[in-house]
């Protein structure tokens, strides 16, 4: 994107007939740029990467329990014990439930906010009357803080109020759905089987990538993706019993219906944001392109399906990245809507705060933080890699 500017092209800098001076000028520029960036590099180095390092170190110690608050608390290195305990320990059940919740949150939030945002953007792209006003209205929820919108939604979704009594005004029976307090769960699975499930998911992804690439490069797709995927799936199917249980007892987790209320509130808050992203993208597509598509006989649906939305792939990707890490940081909304101790709607970020500052278990809290950090990296690193490759190709 930003081509490095050549010093010679700057008017009044140095004349190209003096190469020596030019070189000196260029290195001086570099030095200035470096010195300008140095303070922020140091600050980021210490306050971001240094602290990440410190958190990783803390997560591998046993800092916690009584005596944790001493002026110089005793810490001993325990390796990965905290992580093992979180994923397989008897007392980590709540964390595992929170992790499952976070996965469902992320998926639902992404699908909902991107889908709804795109839909509204397409509607507004038809240039209805009062588009400006509508745009403002849809974007407005983003300006509220999560604590405020969480409190509003808490009232709206109260079991005996808000949404549930709406039908009464039209002469129907009130709803009885417990938006925030339902105990029921769907898509339940047993944590014992988590390794098997992960293997199945990996096989599924391999096969999907293979199918996707089939059109581009048949040989590579089959050799690299399809065959390993099918083999892995078959192996797990046949020899799945050999994979050790992650836990010594049954522990069921699933998609709790009580999280629906929180997902609705988050989608409400963020679909306006994705709408704005898409709308900007749609407006950036030249009218000529649209006219040409129409001239070729494309329908409205066809235009968006084959022309507009594929062109906005970068926007979709950045929306997914931003929303996925927002969904991983979710804290205040859940705190406002369902409170701190609520397994049905819990979230690892909330768990981390309570474990650290209420339970005084600093090492365990740090381990939760690192798990969240790694999951966020799972979303962002592929994106960054993709970006670098694109730049390299240019």
């Amino acid at each position: 994107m930003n081509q490095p500017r050549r010093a010679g092209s700057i008017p009044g800098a140095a004349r190209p007939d003096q190469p020596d001076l030019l070189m000196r000028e260029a290195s001086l520029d570099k030095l200035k740029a470096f010195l300008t960036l140095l303070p922020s590099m140091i600050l980021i180095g210490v306050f971001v990467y240094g602290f990440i390092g410190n958190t990783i170190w803390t997560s591998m110690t046993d800092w916690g329990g009584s005596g944790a608050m001493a002026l110089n608390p005793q810490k001993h290195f325990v390796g990965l014990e905290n992580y093992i305990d979180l994923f397989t320990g008897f007392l980590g059940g709540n964390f595992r439930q929170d992790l499952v919740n976070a996965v469902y949150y992320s998926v639902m939030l992404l699908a909902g906010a991107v889908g709804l945002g795109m839909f509204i953007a397409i509607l507004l792209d038809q240039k209805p009357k009062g588009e400006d006003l509508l745009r403002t209205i849809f974007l407005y929820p983003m300006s509220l803080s999560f604590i405020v919108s969480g409190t509003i939604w808490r009232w709206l979704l109260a079991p005996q109020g808000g949404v549930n009594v709406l039908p009464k005004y039209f002469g129907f029976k009130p709803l009885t759905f417990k938006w925030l307090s339902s105990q029921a769960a769907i898509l339940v699975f047993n944590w014992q089987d988590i390794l098997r499930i992960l293997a199945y998911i990996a096989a599924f992804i391999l096969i999907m990538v293979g199918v996707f690439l089939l059109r581009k490069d048949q040989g590579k797709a089959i050799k690299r993706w399809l065959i390993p995927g099918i083999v892995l799936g078959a192996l797990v199917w046949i020899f799945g019993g050999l994979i050790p249980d992650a836990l010594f007892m049954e522990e069921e987790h699933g998609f709790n219906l009580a999280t629906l209320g929180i997902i609705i509130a988050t989608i409400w808050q963020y679909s306006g944001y994705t709408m704005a992203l898409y709308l900007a993208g749609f407006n950036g597509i030249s009218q000529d392109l649209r006219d040409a598509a129409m001239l070729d006989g494309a329908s409205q649906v066809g235009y968006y399906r084959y022309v507009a939305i594929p062109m906005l792939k970068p926007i979709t990707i950045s929306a997914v990245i931003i929303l996925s890490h927002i969904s991983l940081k979710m804290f205040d909304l859940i705190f406002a809507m369902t409170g701190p101790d609520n397994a049905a709607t819990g979230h690892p970020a909330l768990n981390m705060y309570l474990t650290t500052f209420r339970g005084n278990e600093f090492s365990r809290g740090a381990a939760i933080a690192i798990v969240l950090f790694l999951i966020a990296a799972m979303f962002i690193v592929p994106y960054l890699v993709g970006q670098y490759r694109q730049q390299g190709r240019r």
Partner: protein
Amino acid sequence: MKKAFAKMLIVFAAALLIGAPQAAQASDLKGELEIFSWWAGDEGPALEALIDIYKKQNPGVKVINATVTGGSGVNAQAVLKTRMLGGEPPDSFQVHAGQELIGTWVKADRMEDLTPLFKEQGWMDVFPEGLIKLIGTDKGIWSVPVNIHRSNVMWYIPANLKKWGVEPPKTWADFLAIAPKLKAQGVVPLALAQNWTANHLWESVALASMGADNWDALWSGKLSFDSPEVVKAWELFGKILQYTNDDASSLSWQQATDMVVDGRAAFNIMGDWAAGYMSTTKKLAPGTGYGWIASPGTTGTFMFLADSFGLPKGAPHRANAIAWLKVLGSKQGSDAFNPLKGSISARKDSDLSKYNAYSQSAAKDWNSDRVVGSLAHGVAANDTFKNGFASIMEMFLKTKNPQAAAKACAQLAKKAGI
């Protein structure tokens, strides 16, 4: 203008006159005093009353009221912990008396022993012996309790019970006998709210199920958490949960109390701040408008919790902080604070005429009953246990498995050092 000036003069003179006797005995302390608490909103005026007394006695001290709002101090404690770890303690901070203080701060060697102050002020005699045992260890006494709340109380509306034809249950067996009858009339037998109220209910049930001796043995490590007594308590708790409302997790404790007041539920077990709520906010008369008994099976036992203040090591203004603690423990301070807060005084000699009918009955029980510590409010166990117990409770509400819950508690107790 002139009138206003004249008024100000009068006020000034009056203040001087009132202040005069105190000024005679006022101290010559100087500097600042930072008081760290989570008392804001409804509880703010009670704290102000204490600060007023302090200011009168120590006119030279500038009081900084560092309040961090948030229910039961979750936010305040997080702020406090970061400050203490950073080596910047306030002069005096609020904490629930008992293990919440001892297990966190005393074990970490961050508090000063207050035994000399207790002896100097004669508090060893005015505070009940059971209380001093619970706020102290063999190494000393660690905080000055400002108030006493009772946790094991069952609330009801007498008129409603008459209508439904039931009596307040004396034991949980009685409750389980009348609960189906209530359910048949479309009434929730026992109103419950979000997670911490389930912990609150559990401690009442467990106390009734295992008795006060076993309860104390549990927290001193003499009775293990996966012993049959505890499993039995979890079983009973599971049975009682069948008769609670299923939207509990989205209700606040006030809303659960509202269910009882509105006649949607028959009973509610809550601490005695519910009495303050019903008398002040709901305008019900204690005794006639609303009724109470000790929670089933716990008559003769007083499960207490208390707010207290301690003296951290390295407090920047130590002398000022000690003067503050003296106000907290004094009869004058206690009787100014508690009627406003809706709690009772920890002192045996408090002036009962200042309190309402409920508080008077609680004060009477406080002086005669066996005192045990509350789990849900930080007396019996330290922060690590309390926090872990909240997640065990969540798991139990989902799975209803008494064996697993008892086993998890045993592991947790090991980790928390009980």
